[in-house]
């Protein structure tokens, strides 16, 4: 097994980041509306919300590409000796229960792309539609993965997977969006604006990171099945790597919260916060790539 990501893995990770950013755009809009409510903040807020829509649109476009990569990989798994990849394999994959899950993801992704249209004229409607699409993506993404097999194949696994995605979106998706829009607007009053919105985000990040970790450990524990398999199988070892990345991202988030944020409030931590936030996002991207590798691996005992 190689840990060097191929194009398919990178595109799949891009699709995950698209879903997380769609969720994050909705949460970020709420934070901006609530914490940049002062009329002085209005121009910066409106510009930031417009930018949010553009980011959500760009992110949503990545999802259908990732879905096609998933479909191609699944179709390739159906090849028997002497066959070449063709329509028959794609039809088989789409006709399966797995295919039904992929089609549901496709509908949610299309909805997320189309939600961009009202973001321009009616951002409130665009945000609501993106929110619905984000819930749809979170509910349908687990339909094509290990989550369908855990808890004896019950819907508890899908619920756990959906919580994992929503929580990761609230944490890393919102961070990605805020890192792109929180410094918008005039320099005057920017420090205060950034401090208020980052302060509110810290609480959301704490909830999101906790739920991501909890649901991830639950899903991983169910899939791996034993501590021996954690170190004795490819799936277990990559899961440990993911856990390591998660601890790294969470540690950096805690540093932002406990060290950088107080400096920001004192008016000295602006540059430090930007650097730290982007480093956290870099680690988050690594986390998504590891996740994209993990989903393709068979559960322990099935290699």
């Amino acid at each position: 097994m190689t840990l060097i990501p191929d194009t398919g893995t990178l595109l799949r990770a891009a699709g995950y980041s698209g879903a997380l950013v769609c969720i994050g755009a909705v949460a970020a809009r709420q934070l901006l509306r609530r914490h940049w409510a002062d009329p002085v903040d209005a121009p910066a807020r409106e510009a930031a919300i417009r930018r949010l829509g553009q980011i959500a649109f760009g992110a949503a476009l990545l999802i259908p590409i990732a879905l096609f990569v998933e479909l191609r990989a699944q179709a390739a798994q159906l090849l028997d000796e002497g066959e070449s990849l063709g329509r028959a394999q794609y039809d088989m994959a789409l006709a399966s229960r797995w295919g039904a899950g992929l089609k549901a993801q496709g509908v949610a992704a299309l909805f997320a792309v189309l939600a961009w249209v009202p973001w321009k004229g009616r951002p409130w409607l665009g945000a609501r539609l993106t929110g619905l699409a984000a819930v749809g993506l979170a509910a349908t993404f687990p339909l094509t993965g290990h989550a369908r097999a855990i808890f004896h194949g019950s819907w508890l696994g899908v619920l756990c997977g959906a919580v994992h995605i929503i929580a990761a979106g609230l944490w890393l998706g919102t961070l990605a969006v805020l890192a792109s829009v929180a410094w918008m607007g005039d320099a005057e009053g920017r420090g205060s604006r950034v401090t208020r919105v980052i302060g509110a985000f810290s609480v959301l990040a704490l909830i999101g990171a906790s739920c991501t970790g909890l649901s991830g450990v639950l899903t991983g524990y169910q899939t791996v099945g034993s501590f021996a398999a954690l170190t004795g199988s490819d799936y277990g070892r990559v899961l440990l790597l993911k856990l390591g990345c998660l601890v790294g991202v969470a540690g950096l988030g805690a540093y932002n919260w406990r060290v950088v944020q107080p400096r920001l409030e004192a008016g000295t931590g602006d540059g430090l916060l930007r650097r730290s936030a982007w480093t956290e996002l870099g680690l988050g991207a690594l986390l998504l790539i590891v996740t994209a590798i993990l989903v393709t691996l068979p559960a322990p005992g099935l290699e």
Partner: protein
Amino acid sequence: MLRTLRRALVPAVVASLVVASLAWAMHTTLTKALPAIDGTVTTAPTELTLWFNERPDVALSNIRLQAADSTMITLSSTAVGPDTLSLKASVRGTLAPGKYTVLYRTAGNDGHVMRGKYQFTLQP
């Protein structure tokens, strides 16, 4: 706020650990077959039936039959067997005595494709 979060998180962690211990992941594995795995039959089978530990996804499944000389025997398309946990395929024609390998491909709820094979002997 943080105190409220802590109060919410501790029960959530405990509940999750309890839920985690309830059940393990389920992945499709072959449990039995007709003709039996590594078995010997005296009459030529007209149908192959395979049972799994979970409901196989028929769209992703197929059953193939290979003779001892590696030639493939023609089978009907794979269909759901006598119950939802099984798959079946009919043999076109009559099998000659010898050793046969059944090759199968299936997947369960998560779509992960599993392949396997087993042998049986026809000895009239």
